[in-house]
């Protein structure tokens, strides 16, 4: 038995997991049309590779990455592209986004797949490229590109791989089903990742003790190897990356930092299976396991669903009764967000579609005043004071909100869940965070504008000075030349001075090869620093405070400048 640590707070909402685990993972008929959002993960946008009317094969790339943190998306089945336009997508804010719509031809015909059975012969960088090309994003929460998590950084080594099999949200059983039904894929995925990470010292699977069958399935596969399976008591939210790391290691990810700062990488079950498929089978990420559950669905079950499948397709195949449905949720009841339409497609992070009945999740009773009972603080897993945050959120006191560590709130909803006054606390925190971010962005813009202005002023001044200096030098030279011609002293003529200057310039260029090598090294270093900085910026955008974001974007900017400089110098040299 490994020791585990207990996080503060937490709640025990009814689990409701049994109903979707009565059957094994199912498959649905291929839907007539698939809507594939081009932007399913955190990172920058892509360029579209296909045109309307073009036929595509299953697994064919639809977009090309233009940036290191881009992920492509792929056709989930074969068919014809019938639209590339804005379409409602699953997003907390209910926005539309650019999607490729494919009319399936029913043949489900694959592109040519080249898997690598013996992945150990490949270098980590090649494998990471395959993972990126397969479009694999973290399939648990935010959808962070997996390859970025796994890519080596120059000053940090990974000694612990943590596998998040917690699945602490009520209702969701996608990972549970995967662990039972696809155990071998999962283990192979872990092996691939271990190879990429150059054999981390510790590999730990953290799993809540409400999944005894999954634990048994895993144990039957890993007895021999060095993977540790660590079950711990069920409590929401143990599955947050930071919470899990604490539970398993007793260490805390520094505020605003990443698990890598502790030498850890944390991946979830779906991601590992996707990695296995990408490497060993040569299949990009085009499907995932999704739980369809809730009393408004006659059938509760896990399915292997094609990315882009409209939610309506899932619902109609599960005896969905719209009149009995109180709300439609993508994700679990604690952190999932409500969908306004069933037209939105399944994306890479869709682990659950929850359609509860009116009695199951009734309409919220109106919020009462905060009685400052402190139940929320007792429930908070990161030791915040939710009642104070609420107070200052209402007062719009941004300074106090930051002093009370608003940005360390993981929006788990435990506080709202226990609040006897039924206050939608998380909603207040979200909007406060948004307001503070916006205020800071405005401030950054203002700062940048000021900086640009000052920089320009400085540059102009310097240019002025340089011009003056040059004028002065010329004057000196002519004077000296005049003086020299009058005294006819050798060695100090204008011609001599110029020759000396040329000589200096030549010595400077004396070893171009050496210089080139040096510049190339500098360029590489700058590039890797840039990547590192970008990684941090993405993470900060997901869950950091504004200040961190500011710092990160500043460092990305300066890293980018350094890369540009290095490239520029290199080009000058080679030209």
């Amino acid at each position, binding site marked *: 038995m490994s020791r585990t640590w207990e996080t503060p707070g937490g709640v025990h909402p009814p689990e409701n997991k049994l109903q979707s685990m009565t059957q094994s993972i199912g498959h649905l008929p291929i839907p007539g049309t698939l809507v594939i959002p081009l932007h399913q993960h955190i990172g920058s946008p892509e360029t579209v590779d296909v045109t309307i009317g073009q036929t595509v094969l299953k697994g064919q790339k639809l977009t090309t990455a233009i940036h290191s943190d881009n992920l492509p998306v792929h056709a989930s089945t074969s068919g014809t592209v019938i639209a590339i336009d804005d379409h409602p997508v699953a997003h907390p804010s209910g926005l539309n986004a650019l999607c490729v719509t494919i009319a399936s031809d029913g043949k489900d015909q694959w592109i040519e797949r080249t898997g690598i059975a013996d992945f150990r012969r490949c270098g980590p960088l090649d494998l990471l490229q395959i993972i990126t090309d397969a479009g694999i994003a973290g399939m648990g929460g935010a959808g962070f590109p997996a390859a970025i998590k796994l890519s080596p950084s120059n000053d940090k080594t990974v000694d612990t791989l943590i596998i998040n099999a917690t699945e602490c949200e009520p209702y969701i059983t996608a990972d549970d089903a995967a662990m039972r039904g696809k155990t071998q894929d999962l283990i192979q995925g872990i092996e691939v990742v271990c190879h990429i990470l150059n054999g981390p010292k510790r590999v730990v699977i953290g799993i809540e003790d409400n999944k005894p069958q999954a634990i048994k399935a895993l144990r039957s596969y890993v007895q021999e190897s060095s993977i540790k399976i660590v079950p711990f008591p069920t409590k929401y939210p143990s599955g947050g990356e930071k919470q899990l790391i604490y539970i398993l290691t007793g260490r805390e990810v520094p505020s605003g930092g990443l698990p890598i700062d502790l030498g850890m990488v944390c991946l979830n079950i779906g991601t590992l299976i996707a990695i296995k498929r990408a490497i060993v089978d040569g299949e990009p990420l085009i499907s995932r396991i999704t739980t369809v559950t809730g009393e408004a669905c006659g059938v509760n079950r896990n399915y292997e669903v094609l990315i882009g499948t409209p939610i309506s397709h899932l619902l109609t195949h599960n005896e969905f009764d719209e009149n009995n449905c109180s709300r439609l949720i993508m994700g679990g009841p604690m952190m999932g967000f409500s969908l306004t339409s069933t037209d939105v497609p399944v994306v890479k992070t869709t682990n659950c579609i929850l359609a509860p009945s009116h009695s199951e999740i009734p309409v919220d009773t109106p919020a009462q005043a905060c009685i400052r009972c402190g*139940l929320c603080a007792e429930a908070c897993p990161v030791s915040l004071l939710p009642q104070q945050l609420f107070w200052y959120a209402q007062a719009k006191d941004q300074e106090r909100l930051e002093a009370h560590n608003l940005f360390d709130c993981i929006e788990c909803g435990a506080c709202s869940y226990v609040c006897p006054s039924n206050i939608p606390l*998380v909603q207040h925190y979200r909007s406060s965070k948004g307001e503070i971010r916006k205020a800071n962005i405005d401030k950054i813009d203002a700062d940048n504008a000021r900086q640009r202005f000052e920089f320009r002023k400085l540059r102009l001044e310097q240019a002025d000075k340089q011009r003056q200096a040059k004028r002065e030098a010329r004057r000196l030279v002519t004077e000296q030349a005049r003086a020299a011609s009058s005294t006819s002293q050798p060695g100090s003529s204008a011609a001599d001075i110029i020759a000396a200057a040329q000589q200096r310039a030549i010595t400077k260029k004396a070893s171009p090869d050496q210089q080139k090598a040096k510049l190339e090294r500098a360029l590489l270093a700058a590039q890797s620093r840039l990547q590192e900085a970008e990684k941090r910026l993405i993470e900060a955008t997901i869950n950091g405070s504004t200040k961190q974001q500011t710092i990160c974007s500043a460092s990305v900017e300066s890293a980018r400048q350094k890369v540009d400089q290095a490239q520029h110098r290199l080009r000058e040299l080679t030209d």
Partner: protein
Amino acid sequence: MAFKQISSPHGHNPQSTSWVMQLVLLSTLPGFIALSYQFGWGTFINLIIAVMTSLVAEAAMLALRNRPIAFYLKDYSAAVTAVLLALALPPLASWWVVVVGSLFAIVVAKQLYGGIGHNPFNPAMVGYVVLLISFPIEMTTWVTPISLLPEGVQHPGLWESLSIVFAGNTPIDGITGATPLDVFKHSSGLVVDQIYHDEALFNQASFAGVGWEWVNVGFLIGGIILLKTRIFTWHAPLAMLGTLALMSILFWDSGSSASPGSPVMHLFSGASMMGAFFILTDPVSSAVSNRGRFIYGSLIGLLVYVIRAWGNYPDAVAFAVLLGNFAAPFIDNYTLPRTYGHTARRKATDKGEDE
């Protein structure tokens, strides 16, 4: 098909604010029963007057402040304030004493500060202190515990009690007297053994002081119920009782004539238990974090002892709580919990980010 956009979390723990308040009300029952048994109908009459006055006052204030009346009355918070005040007032106090106290509690201490959740001071204690300062005679006349009544004398029945309360009839001799804390306050010069020997209040007591010991046991039971149901945490009440006990051990002075009394007497006399479990635990006016509440409780325990031992009033819970309320925001500033991923706790008034 269109569905409503609702923010997470979806679903909710069934516990509601009015349920919390009802539970608090129910938990006062053991204390109420003990009071009624020991001191007769007076407490019951206090309760009725206080609750009615408070509800009317709350409704009127809500109407004046343009708030939905039924919605707020349903949270039971006014009833809780009224009940706590009523239990603290002397039984058989004149009706206007109770009415004035309730009005002060609800109108001034609660609604004028912004209603539920906004009052910096505990409303019941504000009402109590106003009465204590304004009507010291009425407020310090206590009914004699049942077992100490003179031969042949009984607590007045319900009708007689009502006539005392409402018509101002004077109760018959012998049914009012001093409390254990009064006795200690006013018997300087005697060593503790002597007091215990002379005073019926003590020599007939089971362990602390006749009557009062059971009232305190009643509130202790109620408090334990609330602790078990996790309505509040142990920090404030136990810190207060602990500090009170510690102080009375330190200054016990082996029972000399200057001794302010034994720890057992202090813990089980006056409003100790009621204060610890029902007044200090008022979350609105107390400190916020657990650590803060611990300090808050200790401070009040200390003040209670200091005022009891060396102040002018025999009991001190109300004053001590109000002083504690004053200190609460200050305590809060230095007792934020350490958040995950931070190396140190921060101050509530910190500017910018740490590190």
